[in-house]
């Protein structure tokens, strides 16, 4: 469902990763690992279409993809429910009632998002994924600030509601998500050569 071939990415003109390839069949997740600054965020942004790869190709149903970044994009002046319905509207869905249970948000439904704790906010950010129901997810450190229980909520959402229905996911994380069967890709070996100038700098060399 997701096919990445020999992709190379750069950040602000500095090459970051190169030669990354992987395949992901429906129902599978890929965990991106690697030390800080290796380029996980950059790779995910590229897959999500926010920046162009400098080399290589990736194939997947673009209209089925969604991206979740470090930042949650939650509006502090809207309630949790309003935040989620906005995303539902944008993606032409409605907010399914089960979402409140999936992410343990029942009690927080009508709280202003600005008054949530770090982890509660993050849960709302993740609930967005359940609302938009896209098949191809690119997630950047989704479990930051979450306690152990919430991490479990997230993994069971991924396993039972996303992957089980034929979704795929590429997830950058530093912790163990408990998605036992997921493939892992350590990006360390793909770090770009220092001497490879970027496409646009190359012209001046």
């Amino acid at each position, binding site marked *: 469902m997701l096919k990445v071939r020999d992709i190379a990415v750069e950040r602000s003109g500095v090459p970051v990763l190169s030669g990354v390839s992987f395949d992901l069949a429906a129902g599978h997740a890929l965990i991106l690992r690697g030390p800080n600054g290796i380029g996980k965020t950059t790779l995910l942004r590229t897959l999500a279409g926010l920046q162009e790869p400098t080399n290589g190709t990736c194939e997947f149903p673009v209209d089925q993809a969604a991206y979740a970044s470090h930042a949650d994009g939650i509006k502090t002046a809207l309630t949790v429910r309003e935040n989620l319905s906005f995303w539902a509207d944008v993606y032409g869905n409605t907010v399914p009632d089960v979402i409140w249970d999936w992410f343990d948000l029942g*009690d927080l439904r009508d*709280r*202003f998002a*600005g*008054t949530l704790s770090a982890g509660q906010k993050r849960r709302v950010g993740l609930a967005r994924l359940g609302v938009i129901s896209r098949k191809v997810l690119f997630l950047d450190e989704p479990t930051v600030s979450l306690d152990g229980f919430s991490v479990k909520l997230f993994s069971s959402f991924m396993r039972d509601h996303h992957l089980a229905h034929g979704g795929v996911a590429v997830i950058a994380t530093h912790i163990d998500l408990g998605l036992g069967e997921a493939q892992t890709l350590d990006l360390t070996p793909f770090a770009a050569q220092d001497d490879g100038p970027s496409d646009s700098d190359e012209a001046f060399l």
Partner: protein
Amino acid sequence: MSLWEYANPKKFMGWTGPVLPWAFGAAGVCLAVGLFWGFFLTPDDYRQGSTVKIIYLHVPSALMAINAWMMMLVASLIWLVRRHHVSALAAKAAAPVGITMTLIALMTGAIWGQPMWGTYWAWDPRLTSFLILFLFYLGYMALWAAIDDPDTAADLTSVLCIVGSVFALLSRYAVNFWNQGLHQGASLSLDKEENVSDVFFFPLLVCIAGFVLLFVALVLLRTRTEIRARRLRALQLREVRT
């Protein structure tokens, strides 16, 4: 039992409940008498004709506009020093009443200005300082509205009210310096020489009394509403946690 006890929200609700209808009643009577007397039982002015009768709305509202700010200043100080919630809420409650008084004074003045000075507005010092007062009210209310947490809002608006008062005084002086005006000088004073003639004076006094009472009644009413809103909020917060 100290006087402060009456400022406890529950006590306050207790004693204001019965007082409120009387306050409104008295305000109604004074206003009815004063305005009727003023509008129908006094002669037209020899220069200004019947337009002079606007004075019965204009002067009382102008006085109350200033006094409302004074009251807010006192209430803010009490909140900062003694942290009495009712005091903060009373200041909050007085602002919309005060700004309405300011607006009434401005609008009646403008309407009066057209026949008197041939223009709705002139940058006369008195008028100008009222406009500035209006801005202060607006800022004060906007700050209340912009902050969710009631105690934080009370603290911040109190500081604003105090700093604002100093600058309002400064503006009053500045404006006087900046432009010599068209507007009447003070005509209500203990010094009889300067006063308007008695025919206008007594109904005016009754109207002023009516406005004072109306102000008190409205502020009490609104303070009660604010207390209820706070109570509701407290209950909701408790709800959220259970």
